[in-house]
């Protein structure tokens, strides 16, 4: 227990180092671009207006606005780092050396039981990742001496064991050993560098062929942008596992819209009732206050047990995700009404019903919109998570299925689309808010 805790703390400390390094690089690039940009523009803006004299007030967001140039260069930098780290073909030249692919060879010297030595060649063909239809190397039939030539097929960045003595004359005899690689002596557990890679001798005397990997990322972990783009085009036309890309996304969206709609349909009236009537407030308060802090994700197992993995379960889950948020928003909206507005309405001759429909309802709209924005965000996150656990279609289902086959490019496409749609939802909600409750925050 204590040991595990200690391990976690040590890991976290290392993470601090790693994260600092990543941020450091990113910030350094930022600083560089900043100086270059300012240098280019130093003559242009002599006068920046009095706004530039404004001091930064902490917590006052409006005093600092985002610099567009910085935003664009930041995004470009992310892509550049991505391309460099993956050795992308989009770059005009490779900044980091990439992993070796193609044909290479090395020579080994064998010593037989009688103490004679002979040399043979090992031809190595390194095939690109994920490409199984590369032409096979054929072993040469003839060779002089007792050591015979070998061929090895190995996938990019992978290693392969080769018993070079297997086809050699007397290779099975006691005392037959490989002693040199490319003229350099080798013993078990030693490595010799050869062209385009290295060769390791295992403890048992076999050779392990290890083509050069380079410092770039392996496509399995992070595919280069062009591969992701090609996969995107492929998904766009063919879909994945028989379901179209946009069909997957649409299904996620449909679930969110339905769940959110149900949440509003029941949550808003319930919130109003709780804000207006102390009995109903008392009646529902314990349930609402208990359910509110339960993350919707924690309900997924229960929902699966109850409804299975079908649509009903998903929509119910999203309904529950939206419900509490909408209840609390509507409740806060009606109970937050300024008492002088209520008094004003009464002394202008409004009846109770009129007060409710003409004052309390419209007054609560800003709060309801805030809640709706939060609920939409939570629903979108929840639907993806629910699809990860169990679903037949959907953006989450697509990426979890792809991850099982290590199709990292599909996973990345899915993540990007999920992010873009989540952002789009928020932008739409904000636009609706500005249109429908323009007085928000200015009362």
């Amino acid at each position, binding site marked *: 227990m204590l040991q595990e805790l200690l391990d976690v703390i040590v890991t976290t400390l290392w993470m601090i180092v790693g994260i600092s390094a990543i941020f450091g690089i990113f910030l350094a690039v930022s600083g560089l671009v900043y100086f270059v940009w300012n240098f280019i523009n130093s003559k242009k803006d002599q006068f920046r207006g009095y706004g530039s004299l404004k001091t930064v007030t902490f917590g006052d967001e409006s005093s600092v606005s985002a610099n567009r140039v910085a935003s664009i260069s930041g995004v470009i930098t992310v892509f550049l780092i991505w391309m460099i780290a993956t050795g992308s073909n989009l770059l005009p030249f490779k900044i980091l050396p990439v992993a070796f692919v193609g044909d290479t060879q090395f020579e080994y010297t064998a010593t037989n039981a009688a103490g004679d030595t002979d040399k043979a060649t090992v031809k190595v063909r390194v095939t690109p990742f994920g490409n199984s239809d590369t032409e096979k190397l054929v072993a040469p039939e003839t060779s002089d001496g007792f050591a015979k030539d070998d061929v090895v097929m190995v996938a990019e960045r992978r290693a392969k064991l080769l018993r070079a003595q297997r086809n050699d004359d007397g290779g099975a005899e006691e005392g037959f050993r490989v002693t040199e690689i490319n003229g350099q002596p080798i013993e078990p557990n030693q490595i010799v560098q050869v062209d385009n890679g290295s060769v390791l001798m295992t403890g048992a005397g076999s050779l392990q062929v290890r083509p050069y990997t380079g410092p770039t990322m392996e496509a399995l972990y992070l595919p280069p942008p062009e591969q992701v783009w090609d996969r995107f085009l492929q998904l766009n036309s063919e879909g994945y596992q028989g379901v179209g890309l946009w069909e997957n996304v649409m299904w996620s969206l449909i679930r969110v819209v339905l769940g959110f709609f149900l949440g509003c349909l029941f949550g808003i009236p319930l919130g109003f009732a709780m804000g207006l009537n102390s009995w109903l407030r008392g009646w529902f308060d314990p349930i609402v206050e208990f359910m509110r802090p339960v993350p919707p994700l924690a309900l997924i197992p229960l929902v699966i047990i109850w409804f299975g993995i079908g649509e009903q379960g998903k929509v119910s889950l999203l309904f529950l995700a939206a419900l509490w948020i909408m209840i609390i928003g509507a409740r806060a909206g009606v109970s937050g009404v300024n008492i*002088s507005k209520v*008094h004003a309405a009464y002394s202008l001759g409004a009846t109770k019903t009129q007060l409710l429909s003409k004052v309390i309802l419209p007054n609560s709209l800003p709060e309801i919109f805030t809640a709706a924005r939060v609920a939409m965000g939570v629903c979108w996150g929840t639907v993806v998570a629910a699809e990860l656990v169990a679903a037949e279609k959907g953006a989450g289902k697509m990426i979890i299925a792809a991850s099982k086959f290590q199709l990292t490019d599909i996973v990345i496409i899915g993540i990007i689309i999920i992010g873009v749609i989540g952002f789009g939802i928020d932008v739409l909600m904000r636009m609706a808010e500005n249109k429908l409750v323009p007085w928000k925050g200015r009362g």
Partner: protein
Amino acid sequence: MSGLIVDDISMTFELPDGGNVEALKNVSIDIKEGELISVLGPSGCGKTTLLNILAGFLAPTGGKISLNNEVVTGPSSERGMVFQQGALFEWMNVSKNIGFGPSMKGTPQSDINNRVTELLGIVGLQDFSEKMIYELSGGMQQRVALARCLANDPDVILMDEPLGALDALTREKMQSLVLDIWKKTGKTIILITHSVEEALLLGERLIVMAPRPGRIHKQYNLPFAEMGVGADLREVKRHKKFGPTRDEILSMIWDMEEEIMGRTESA
């Protein structure tokens, strides 16, 4: 007997800790129809409480209010109220705010429109009828509040520090506007203020209240409101009796404030 009669009103608030506050004790005032009354007093002497009782938002714990021989039991459109701020409806534009009262009664839309146009003229907001409330300055907002109250044609207009949040110049203009409206419409107006000058200018009768328990301390009948109608208010302030009256009331209020402070310190 017509007019607004405050008959031996008392208001005691029970506090959650078991104690209680006598916000008002045995307050009686007879207010004639068309009278302009200003109410002055140190903070916490029960001015707002009195106004809320007059409006019908609070039920007094003792005594009763009657308007034109009818006992007041709750808010009604006969008694309009202008609040300090924040009581306009932000989701409606200026016209809709002003027309709110009539539309609640089901007045035909064309009549409402005529009334709103007329009132926009009176408060000088003709060009702002379609603006939203948050697009107006504080002074304009108070003019909308005044117009909204007038739209209902109430018998009594109650104002709780309606000009408290305005700058000096706007405030002066609004004071003239209140006097104009008072003269033109002949409404009974009861106005609470913290400014002694404003109380002198906007009160045919000035009521000074004293705290703990909240009660009427002194009443003055003043000529300044009548003088101020249609005249330059700065001229009125130069009247030979204005300065001395102001100083007398100021020192009275200062004495009361000091007494409160002293009591809190010794407590």
